């Protein structure tokens, strides 16, 4: 008899979603789907607003990664103004973007995912959350809180507030960095670096315990996409979060397309709409839908580059690349990639703060709109973020397209859920460990479905086993 398992809501992710697992007559997993059950409507309600409001408006998409939206949005507005923003403004924006990546990665790794890594996927759900971590592994928990705090404090020092700073504006940033604030940030970095290094060391030590998860958590061939920038000598591809060109790599490590100006993203990406989710499914046009599946985010970024560009992160990247002959295909390794990116972020912020012009007072270019269209692309913690606006002659928005990192990953998340479900879900009975693995694979992508976070794992988890006519056969409740 065909059955259906529904996990609703999925916990310890940012936003609201549910998972449906369909079983065939033999009780084997036939299909699994990840549904995003909330609708936001930003692309529609921004229409008619002045383009200069867009960074703040779209920043409200998320309370975890507003800075990422500020970056992509401000870049789209820069294009509409058709100005080259001052180099100091680029550097200051980059610092804030990296601080954002550090704080968001810290949230994902320590608060949301470390309970699974520390207590095991089959651990008692009563303690398998951040408070359980605080109790049993206080040092690691404090490290996570401190690292996130440092990222948030850097954002606050630059932008005036931790969440939704209005500092990133079309044409640059609204105020320069003061010498005093530069010193304060520099003084915070040694602690952040030490936390990144010891967490990496710990993670590499326990990685062997998760061989099953490495093999089954979204471990499949797919394309990868991210921004990359050239190294100093122009021969290598370097890690990039703010600027750069788009690059696609296939599962064998072959560069499919490279050096794509981000404003031509539509030549390569299209978006499919599914009837059972509000999240669109972008795909690589050349391979069509749904074969054009690609992944973005920390794993994709590290797969697509040759070097990070900072000393310690490059050492870690070498080890990471040595794990596989081609690109690392396991989504479980996003955790590892996040740790390396945080280390890179700390190193790169220090480099930028030590550049001669970082305190320059000219941080903004002023202009009226000189183009009727603008595209802004940056790397958010979860992957490539695209904002695309069109304006009328008066500077009012007429059309918006936003492709969020989690959207890029939608097809991959669905495929990952199916893979985990096929491996762990047995129709005869429902087990917490199985359910948690299905959720955990989603968590490896750190999907940001809205501006809310359910970091404590306290939301109820309802799993229903349904017969072909929708009758309830079994039920498990949690929380």
């Amino acid at each position: 008899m065909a059955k259906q398992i529904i996990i609703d809501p999925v916990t310890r992710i940012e936003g609201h979603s549910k998972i449906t697992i369909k079983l065939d007559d033999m009780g084997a997993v036939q299909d699994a789907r990840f549904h995003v059950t909330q609708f936001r409507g930003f692309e529609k309600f921004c229409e008619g607003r002045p383009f200069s409001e867009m960074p703040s408006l779209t920043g409200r998409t998320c309370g975890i990664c507003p800075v990422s939206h500020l970056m992509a949005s401000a870049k789209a507005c820069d294009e509409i103004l058709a100005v080259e923003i001052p180099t100091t403004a680029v550097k200051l924006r980059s610092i804030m973007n990296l601080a954002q990546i550090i704080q968001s990665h810290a949230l994902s790794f320590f608060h949301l995912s470390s309970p699974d890594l520390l207590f095991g996927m089959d651990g008692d759900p009563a303690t398998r959350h951040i408070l359980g971590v605080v109790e049993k592994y206080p040092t690691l928990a404090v490290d996570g809180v401190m690292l996130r705090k440092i990222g948030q404090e850097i954002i606050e020092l630059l932008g005036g507030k931790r969440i939704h700073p209005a500092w990133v504006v079309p044409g640059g940033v609204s105020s320069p960095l003061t010498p005093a604030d530069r010193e304060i940030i520099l003084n915070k970095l040694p602690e952040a670096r030490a936390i990144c290094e010891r967490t990496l060391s710990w993670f590499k030590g326990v990685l062997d315990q998760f061989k099953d998860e490495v093999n089954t958590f979204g471990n499949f061939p797919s394309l990868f996409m991210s921004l990359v920038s050239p190294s100093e000598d122009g021969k290598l591809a370097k890690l990039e979060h703010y600027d750069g060109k788009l690059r696609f790599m296939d599962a064998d490590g072959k560069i499919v397309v490279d050096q794509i100006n981000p404003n031509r993203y539509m030549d390569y990406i299209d978006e499919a709409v599914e009837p059972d989710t509000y999240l669109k499914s972008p795909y690589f046009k050349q391979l069509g839908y749904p074969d054009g599946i690609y992944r973005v985010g920390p794993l994709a970024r590290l797969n697509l580059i040759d070097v990070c560009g900072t000393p310690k992160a490059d050492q870690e990247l070498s080890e990471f690349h040595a794990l596989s002959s081609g690109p690392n295909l396991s989504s479980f390794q996003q955790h590892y990639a996040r740790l390396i990116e945080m280390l890179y972020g700390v190193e790169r912020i220090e480099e930028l703060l030590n550049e001669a012009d970082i305190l320059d007072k000219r941080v903004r270019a002023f202009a009226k709109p000189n183009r009727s269209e603008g595209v802004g692309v940056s790397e958010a913690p979860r992957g490539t973020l695209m904002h695309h606006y069109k304006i009328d002659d008066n500077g009012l928005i007429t059309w918006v397209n936003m492709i969020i990192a989690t959207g890029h990953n939608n097809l991959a998340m669905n495929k990952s859920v199916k893979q985990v479900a096929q491996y762990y879900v047995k129709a005869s009975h429902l087990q917490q460990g199985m359910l948690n693995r299905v959720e955990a694979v989603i968590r490896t992508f750190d999907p940001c479905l809205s501006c809310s976070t359910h970091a404590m794992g306290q939301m109820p988890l309802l799993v229903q086993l349904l017969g072909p006519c929708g009758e309830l056969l079994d039920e498990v409740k949690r929380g």
Partner: protein
Amino acid sequence: MAVTTLKIDGKEVSANEDETILDVAFQAGIKIPTLCHIEGLTDIGACRMCIVEVAGSNKLQPACTTKVKDGMEITTQTARLKKYRKMVLEMLFSERNHVCAVCVSNGNCDLQTLAVEHDLTHVRMPYLYPKTEIDASHEWFALDQNRCVLCQRCVRVCDEIEGAHVWDVSGRGVQSRVITGLNEPWADSDTCTSCGKCVQVCPTGALSNKGKATGEMTKHREFLPYLAQRRHDHK
């Protein structure tokens, strides 16, 4: 000019007969909240934030348009007044789309300041969420009806100080809208001199300089008392 004596909040004050309660209270250092009032323009009593209690009358009076009388006893701060002032603010917020978080005047807004001063933590009546347009046709300025409180400062400054009378109010009740010219796009107004006085006196983000990002619109009103005095001297 006859001089009268009256009491405001128990304080004996003297005033000229043609002065308003608001003028006299201000001179005596007694603060009464205002929104549509701005020094230099004729008061019209539109917002009702400056309501006061006058002994012997159960009717609340707007301090900005009520002339003083001999022996008046005025109270400016009572629980009843606070209640109604707060209600006025709630109705203003519920009538349009005042989204402070993304507004160009965030942090520099008279309406927002009043809300903070009156501990307005939430609005009890349902929001109307009207669909209102933005007129960004002017080369330098934009009108966002979503943020307008119909104080008519723009109407008055354009008429009384600039002498262009570009602005007016059309419609009635909740359908009221400030308009330029004969309800035509601002850019098409033949009378607008693009002086920007309307933008500077606007208490909220309804009128702003184009291209400003969130919280960047600060208003400069130093010119107004000076120009108003010069106009007065010429009459």
